[in-house]
């Protein structure tokens, strides 16, 4: 039992830190550290930089073009990215659809889709949720009818994150109404440029357009784009869920944001206010405990043991902490958090300017989503209870 990383792991961390420092535009990192909104170019530019190095798909095995890192190396890389202020790696391509393609796609599909994901050239989005089918995913109604060598897709998806920028979408679609709702679902890849695909961005409470409605109106999709077998899509989706990693807790981002909270408290003159400081201290304890929980899950994976009973807790706790972080940052700013300054949400301003506080309240608002999406925390507690009680 040991908290320390091995000398090899520490050397690895030094290496990736140095590489990130050399390749990450300081102005872009400054935007991240300031909590600003990132443009499509910010995100995709960085993804391409990582892609050129072969590190965008950093969780992939060598066989599919990944670096073949251990789970600990993956964690250290994620930590290095977060602490450096790198833009987030969007999970839809490399983390979500890619493992399904690797596990269930044909060699042709793998050759066709994986390189574009690994290079950061192709932007993917996820078509699971539908209006009326939130946590109850199995009730989805978007249907795909086989007509010759195509599926004809009709229906609507929603909460599709950043679909307005996406080249491709992976969808759960209904191909049968027989049996239980889960059994008639298929896993289909759809080119967003297909005729009949319409995207409508949804304005969120913080004023941002982060999710979308996506309509399919007689969209023709080649059967080659079906992953695995027809009507087995639910199995593949579940496979994906069971492969979600410790990084669902986003603890490395939480550590970075805690440092930001502390900087803010100092800048706003409340670092020595006992009440505010106690709240920060409590959150520091929460974050250390979360990190320990994450490290335990990683260590179990490293030893090849399942740690699912604990892993199920990570999303609940991680999301609560992300919310509390943004809440406290807003509270630290006090009334100065109240002006809504649209321009200052996108553009760097001097750190001591009023505008530098502009992102705080919108971030707090935005983070309410974290206990709702990806299976609400109520659903997560159902899952934990199910493993405990049956």
């Amino acid at each position, binding site marked *: 039992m040991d908290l320390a990383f091995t000398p090899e792991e520490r050397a690895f961390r030094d290496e990736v830190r140095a590489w990130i420092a050399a390749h990450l535009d300081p102005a872009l990192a400054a935007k991240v550290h300031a909590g600003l909104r990132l443009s499509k170019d910010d995100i995709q530019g960085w993804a391409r930089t990582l892609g050129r190095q072969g590190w965008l798909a950093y969780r992939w095995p060598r066989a599919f073009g990944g670096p073949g890192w251990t789970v600990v190396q993956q964690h250290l890389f994620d930590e290095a990215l977060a602490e450096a202020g790198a833009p987030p790696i969007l999970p839809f391509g490399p983390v979500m659809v890619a493992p399904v393609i690797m596990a269930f796609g044909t060699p042709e599909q793998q050759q066709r889709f994986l390189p574009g994901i690994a290079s950061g050239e192709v932007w993917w989005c996820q078509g699971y949720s539908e209006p009326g089918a939130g946590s109850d995913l199995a009730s989805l109604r978007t249907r795909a009818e086989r007509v010759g060598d195509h599926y004809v897709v009709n229906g609507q998806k929603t909460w599709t994150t950043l679909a307005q920028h996406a080249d491709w979408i992976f969808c759960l679609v209904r191909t049968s109404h027989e049996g239980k709702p889960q059994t008639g679902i298929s896993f289909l890849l759809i080119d967003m440029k297909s005729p009949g695909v319409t995207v409508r961005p949804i*304005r969120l409470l913080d004023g941002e357009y982060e999710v979308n409605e996506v309509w399919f109106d007689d969209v023709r999709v080649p059967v080659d784009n079906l992953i695995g077998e027809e009507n087995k899509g639910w199995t593949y989706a579940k496979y994906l869920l069971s492969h979600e990693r410790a990084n669902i807790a986003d603890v490395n981002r939480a550590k970075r944001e805690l440092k930001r909270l502390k900087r803010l408290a100092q800048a706003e003159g409340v670092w020595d206010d006992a009440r505010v400081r106690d709240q920060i201290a409590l959150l520091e304890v929460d974050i250390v405990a979360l990190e320990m929980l994450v490290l335990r899950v990683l260590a179990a994976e490293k030893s090849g043991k399942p740690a699912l009973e604990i892993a199920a807790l990570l999303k609940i706790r991680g999301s609560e902490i992300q919310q509390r972080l943004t809440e406290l940052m807003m509270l630290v700013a006090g009334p*100065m*958090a109240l002006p809504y300054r649209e321009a200052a949400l996108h553009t760097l301003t001097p750190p001591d300017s*009023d505008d530098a506080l502009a992102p705080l309240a919108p971030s707090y608002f935005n983070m309410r989503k974290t206990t709702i999406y990806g299976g609400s925390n109520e659903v997560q507690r159902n899952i934990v209870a199910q493993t405990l009680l049956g």
Partner: protein
Amino acid sequence: MDFDFTDEQVQLRDAVQRWADKGYDVERRRAIIDAGGFDEGAWRELVELGLTGLTVPEVHGGAGLGAVEAMVVMEALGHGLVLEPLAHSFIASAVLQRHADAALQQAWLPRLASGARLVLAHVERRSRHRLDVCDTAATAVGDGWRVRGRKVVVPAGDRADAWLVPARVDGTLAMLLVEAGAPGVSASGYPTQDGSRAADVVFDDAPARLVTRDGEAALAWAVDVGIALVAAQAVGVMDRAFGLTRDYLQTRRQFGVPIGSFQALRHRLADMKMALELARSMSYYATLKLGEPEAVRRAALARAKVQLGQSMRFVGQQAVQLHGGIGVTDECLISHCFKTLTQLELTFGDTLHHLGEVAARMTDEAGVAV
């Protein structure tokens, strides 16, 4: 001891609520937000309803009503998610009546009643929630005064006719009145998080009238009145959010049943009801304690804001959570309730700030009566 409203108070509430329901519906509100968060037309309607002069004495052209009526109005405006800061008319009326000399009252109370906007401008860049942090300074010049400094997040501050401005005079706090359009005054407005409007106001040796040299008492009074008004407004918003959430639980279906059949969500709604009723209780308490001597009043208003702050945060967050994905969209009214509650929590001192006030003012005694 009695918490019934009089028939007149019920009529007043109904009149405001009717106006909000019909005259200030969601579409109009959205248009006002898009246009910057303050609407002259809506303000005129508030004036026509007699609300700006509600607490102005009848001799000055007002209705001469009191804190309970102001509370009733604010709760209805909160329920209607009205953006225009009527609370500041009540605050100005209270400050002038208690602290201004007869001439200033004569000059301004009738104007208040007829709709002039006199707004408290007390927050500074470094003050956070503290009332004793004030860099703005005033100096006597001839038989008048000059004010120099910068106030921030002043509600509808660039649409005001005048501001009540706390400023230092020889080290102690005074309260002054500065008129819009006076030389050396500039206001830059912006929308706020809840969709309403505010401004930063700069006074560059702007001419001013003295309201009182005892600015500390006047500011404390203004803020305590403000806390009671914000409490009432917040109760209205929470009541709206609670109702929307209850409806949603009853109509939204998942897994083949209304989500209001899930025990965990049912208990959450019960907890929201608890938070709402504790807040409503403390809103009454805040208003009814405004007449107490300053020490008792300040402790009471701080207690109220602590309860309100906790309730607002819980009700706002849970209302969004129970709505699920739709709750975080701009389209869904619940997100506006949530943002309004967030803004109100940060107005006139947040929960931690007032917890400190309660702790500092705590005595050996306990209960509502002390």
